[in-house]
């Protein structure tokens, strides 16, 4: 066997007779379907909490409203839109509304809720024979509900309810995945991408919130300060679990330590990295081939970092450094997953040129 593009022999696996195999494209689409669902859930929650915080306090302080709205755009990497969405004359109460509208229904915004859902559905549609009928029906029904004629009116009417539907939609989707489909490779890719996205989003939320709050923390009056740190926990879906473990204490370092290092809470970075690693281990165990070793190596190293680190000195700088490194490590692992399992690297033109020369 030869290869025209010089990348070595293609990986023909003669032991793959009978039994179950997974198309690389299906793995790819299931990964991104789940990832977009998870992303939508986080963005919906960020919008919901930001809106909630500002509904209580925003009219008091325009500068504060701008900070909160700016965080939303920073977390979702849309900060270049900040000037356009917050022109000088716009009253504080309108600032968040403009950002929320942009982040919810703007189909040109690649991180808007509606765009994430469209991508999740598109990926699901391409693999609907590989996921359960219940999952497809849920994702499809939800998609049409937010594409319906009255969706905009429902959003403008009660945005909080609109966000809640996204969050519940994501929970329902993952619940259906757990309960209605075979826990084979497709399911494992769904798990893997869910945890990869969760780590990424959690890092981004913490980085944005800690850098903003580190600047304004001392100037905030105590009640606003408490509300802010509570909002960080709520945005990470962690406030109830945190409270049970930290009765009456609301210190930034405790908040960070909980969200990053807690071993048993499914929203903590520690937990997510561990689960992502476990998914990769299981995917590899089901395959006789050598693929996925690089993803496993990177995730294993990242897990060791998270497991045996502590944030020394209690400073924001070390925290930001740690989060930044974690994000980068996860991104590398995700890239390794795509490269080794989704076979995007194999160029069909390369194959074409040598398959013509066969007898």
């Amino acid at each position, binding site marked *: 066997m030869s290869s025209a593009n010089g990348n070595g022999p293609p990986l023909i*696996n003669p032991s793959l007779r*009978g039994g179950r195999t997974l198309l690389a*494209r299906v793995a790819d689409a299931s990964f991104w379907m789940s990832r977009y669902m998870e992303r939508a859930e986080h963005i919906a929650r960020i919008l919901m909490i930001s809106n909630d915080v500002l509904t209580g306090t925003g009219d008091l302080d325009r500068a504060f409203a701008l900070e909160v709205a700016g965080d939303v755009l920073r977390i979702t990497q849309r900060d270049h839109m900040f000037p356009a969405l917050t022109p000088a004359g716009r009253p504080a109460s309108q600032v968040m509304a403009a950002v929320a509208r942009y982040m919810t229904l703007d189909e040109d915004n690649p991180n808007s809720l509606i765009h994430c859902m469209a991508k999740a559905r598109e990926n699901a549609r391409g693999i*609907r*024979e*590989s996921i359960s009928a219940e999952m497809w029906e849920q994702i499809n029904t939800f998609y049409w509900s937010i594409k319906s004629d009255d969706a905009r009116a429902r959003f403008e009417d009660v945005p909080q309810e609109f966000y809640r539907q996204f969050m519940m939609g994501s929970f329902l989707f993952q619940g259906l995945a757990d309960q209605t489909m075979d826990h084979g490779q497709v399911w494992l890719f769904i798990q893997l991408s869910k945890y990869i996205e969760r780590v990424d989003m959690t890092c981004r939320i913490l980085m944005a919130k800690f850098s903003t709050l580190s600047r304004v923390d001392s100037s905030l009056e105590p009640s606003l300060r408490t509300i802010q740190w509570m909002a960080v926990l709520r945005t990470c879906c962690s406030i109830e679990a945190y409270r049970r473990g930290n009765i009456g204490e609301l210190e930034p370092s405790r908040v960070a330590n909980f969200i990053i290092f807690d071993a048993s809470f499914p929203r903590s970075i520690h937990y997510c990295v561990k689960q992502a690693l476990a998914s990769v281990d299981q995917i590899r165990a089901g395959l006789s081939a050598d*693929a996925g070793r690089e993803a496993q190596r990177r995730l294993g190293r990242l897990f060791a970092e998270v497991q045996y680190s502590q944030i020394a000195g209690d400073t924001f700088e070390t925290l930001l450094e740690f989060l930044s490194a974690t994000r980068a490590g996860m991104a590398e692992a995700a890239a390794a997953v795509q490269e080794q399992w989704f076979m995007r690297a*194999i160029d069909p033109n390369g194959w074409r040129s040598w398959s*013509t020369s066969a007898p």
Partner: protein
Amino acid sequence: MFDEYQINGLFDEMFEKPGTPRPHYARLHQRVCDLGMTALQHRSKMADVCFRNQGVTFTVYKDALGVEKIFPFDLMPRIIPAEEWETIEKGLIQRLTALNLFCHDIYHQQHILRERIMDPQLVYNARMFRRQMLGINVPRGIYVTICGTDLIRDQHGEYLVLEDNCRTPSGVSYVLENRAIMKRVFPSVFQAAHVRPIEDYPHNLLRCLKFLAPHDQADPCIVVLTPGMHNSAYYEHSFLARQMGLELVEGRDLLVDDNYVYMRTTAGMRRVDVIYRRIDDDFIDPLCFRPDSLLGVAGLMNAYRMGRVALANAVGVGVADDKAIYPYVPEMIRLYLKQEPILKNVQTYICARPDECAYVLEHLHELVVKSTNEAGGYGMLMGHQASQAEREEFAVKIKADPRNFIAQPVIELSQHPSMIGESIEGRRIDLRPYILCGQNISVMPGGLTRVALKRGSLVVNSSQGGGSKDTWVLEAQTS
């Protein structure tokens, strides 16, 4: 309920004469009257919601990506009595047997041409004739594994064959979904009717595909090949793959090495033995057919010709779909089977023959003219409904390329009561049964009944505003 119902001088499937339903419709008629309009509409809405939520859609090509649409579902089922079906079934089996023999003949000895039954020009000029298949032996000698033959009934109620779809007949997923929905929204009516089940179709299809596997592979790898999710029938491709438990692949998932076909999996390349392909010949292999096709697999034809992979349906069967070859099917039955055809064709004028072409041009106002290679209701002229200008425009096209056209007299299709808004009105229907050829030939009892939802329209295609209804073939009375 049916007080306002008009029979319009047509053959009506349900009513013998106004107010008198045919015996096999009596029970349904009674039940519909008992339910009343409000309840019917409620059930009709339930059905629509089910279809939409399950994403049972087809794509209409309007812009680059197309628009997903629901195939309109008409709640009123069509009923075919057992003895009527028996004849249809025999006729369809006879027809598919002959078509398979014709394909083999055309790509081998060509008896039908040597005996001057058919003009060789007609075959060699057929756009779907594939010279690449000459002398190639296909697995088990089966060219057409899945056939969808369109039947209509004329004003006397006689079943006629309108066309055969030997390439990639679609619609069977709607048949199965329609049935599932019907059982859900109309359980009592359905149960009382003693309808023959159709749910084993995917299983039968899978057995036919497995039958094609090269050498006796105990556990062959069979896949469904789709052009992708922007294709009009993508829903169906996905549905069939799911129902059969097979992998749904796109061209980019496959590659050919050393004349074997492989699919890219997360564990490396896996050998593929049988491909149920839903891609036309033209797009299946850029090395052999259209070089600009991104949908197919380079090198697939070589693997196929070496017998290392089976394709269903075989490459080149489109020659039998050609509308100028269709008029010869009765001759094929006589030649290959030494039998008289059980199902009749619609009378057809072949424009490639000068005298018939002249007749067609003179009688455009009373004929239906069809392009020989189009499907989906595109490229046709309904002479009696068209304007003078449209007819003239078509005449120019016919004169420019007579081989590309045939004409048929306008057949007044039978009508069937359909839910139209808040009332029940008669609408024209046809029937597409699905015939499978494996170890033996089997016909799914029923098939897709398409209905032209526009008043007076004779065109039932989904792309032209057609809908569909469940088709009930009744079990034979065992008294």
